[in-house]
């Protein structure tokens, strides 16, 4: 566990040294503010539900920017050799990388606290849904970053791992959204596909409901992709 934290800390610091992180930070702040002011008007409910709904779409394009270099960069610069010859397991390496990206991701939300302040100043918001909304966003982000960690272990090329991450996330969002409405797909399968739909699972969080099955959906999604990432890193040794 100590190793995981060591790797995560280093990863998070190095993210703050990379220009891409600041691009992500700037676009995220801009995007979330625009979304906020879009739904912030007199006579509207004092909540951020609308903002959160938009932010998870925004995350599809921005989070892969954080994760694309996680593992690929280590292979590119050769530092992977230092890590793999240390008494460090591949699981610790992957978890550390993911956790470091999570750390950075969570800091993206610090500017959004200003928006919460604005809601507080102009109305009396219900803090329950606000808190669960944030929890939901962190779970969605964790899931996306796990996909990104996996993709960054596939290719040394950061652009490829970015595209691959966006594509995979789209499978769980856009593609399912569109297909589950398509007439040619039988209703049973549509129902099954609905269950894979990320935004569907997020909705409850925005309403202030903490449903264990929703949490399990996200956690098992993260575990699945992180497991694949570990297997990929392991397999690199054998190639």
């Amino acid at each position, binding site marked *: 566990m*100590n190793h995981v934290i060591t790797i995560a800390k280093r990863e998070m610091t190095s993210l703050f040294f990379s220009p891409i992180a600041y691009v992500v930070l700037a676009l995220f702040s801009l995007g979330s503010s625009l979304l906020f002011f879009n739904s912030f008007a007199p006579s509207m409910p004092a909540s951020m539900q609308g903002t959160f709904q938009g932010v998870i779409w925004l995350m599809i394009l921005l989070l892969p920017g954080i994760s694309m270099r996680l593992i690929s960069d280590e292979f590119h*610069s050769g530092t992977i050799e*230092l890590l*793999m010859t*240390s*008494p460090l397991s591949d699981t610790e390496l992957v978890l550390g990388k993911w956790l470091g990206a999570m750390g950075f991701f969570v800091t993206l939300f610090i500017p959004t606290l200003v928006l919460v302040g604005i809601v507080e100043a102009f109305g009396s918001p219900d803090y329950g849904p606000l808190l669960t909304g944030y929890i939901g966003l962190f779970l969605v982000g964790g899931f996306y970053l796990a996909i990104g960690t996996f993709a960054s272990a596939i290719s040394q090329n950061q652009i490829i791992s970015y595209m691959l991450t966006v594509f995979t996330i789209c499978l769980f969002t856009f593609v399912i959204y569109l297909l589950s409405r398509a007439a040619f797909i039988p209703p049973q399968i549509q129902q099954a596909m609905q269950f894979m739909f990320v935004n569907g699972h997020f909705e409850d969080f925005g309403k202030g409901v903490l449903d264990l099955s929703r949490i399990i959906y996200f956690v098992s999604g993260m575990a699945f992709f992180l497991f694949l990432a570990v297997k990929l890193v392991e397999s690199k040794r054998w190639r």
Partner: protein
Amino acid sequence: MIHVENLVKWYGPTRAVNGISFDVPEGQILGFLGPNGAGKSTTIRMLTGYLPPTSGNATIAGFDALKESEKARRQIGYLPESTPLYMEMRVEEFLHFRGKLMDMPRADRVKAIDYVSDRCGLKEIRRRVIGQLSKGNRQRVGIAQALLHDPKILILDEPTSGLDPVQIGAVRNLIQELKGKHTILLSSHILPEVEKTADRVIIIAAGEIKADGSPSDLRQKVGQGASVLVQVKANGESVQKAFTGVEGVQSVTVEQQGDWVKAVVQPTPGSELRERLGQTILTNGWAIREMRNETASLEQFFIQITADQSQVVEEAVA
């Protein structure tokens, strides 16, 4: 301390290492010498647990490099080829990071970082960002991180590549200073470097061990059977005649160059000719301007082996 048995590594259809076996006793400095692409780095990577061998096994301080990999890795301080470092970190930060991965408690880490900074001459650059350091200084950081946890075994892959002669000298001195404290395996494709620092040299080419021994052993081995080159002022035919009669001479070839004769004398195995040739020259009263053993340098031996490998490659291409 290091025991290697019949190590083989295939990369797809290419065999990089072909059945290498050797033992390194505690405290020895072993030089791993070979041309680029000989399989040095691959062998080292199998020892450090970065790559699994296709077959064969390696034991590091009593731990199997594959089955007890984590324990084996703890015994090794490793500087990979081309010195990969995190360019955005500061030297001290990076050393702390390495120490944490080696599970060193904070107090030990601070002490060890002071020690290696002192040893590797990092005192002035401890707060500098690694990306801004010169190649020589990065190399020092690389060696420092390998030394940090005071490993029993130090493995340095091409520690002086890309350095200028002064820096090479500094690294060589550092390795000399570490002698006795660690068992050291260093690799190089440059001969003099290994010849000066190592107790023992293994020459590897085309994935196989071509020679194994102390630098002086190897030099002797090379010296044996070396032909003697002599230049005297005389008539070619008489020189040929006189030298052929000397005990221990197998063959003589002469070449007339104006007044002078250049003779290459091949001895029968195991005989040392120079003294007797000198006697012959004195008796004949010839003037002499040169006499030397022709292939006595380890360098030539090395070049010869290297040439063999490129020949193999050329044949394979053809």
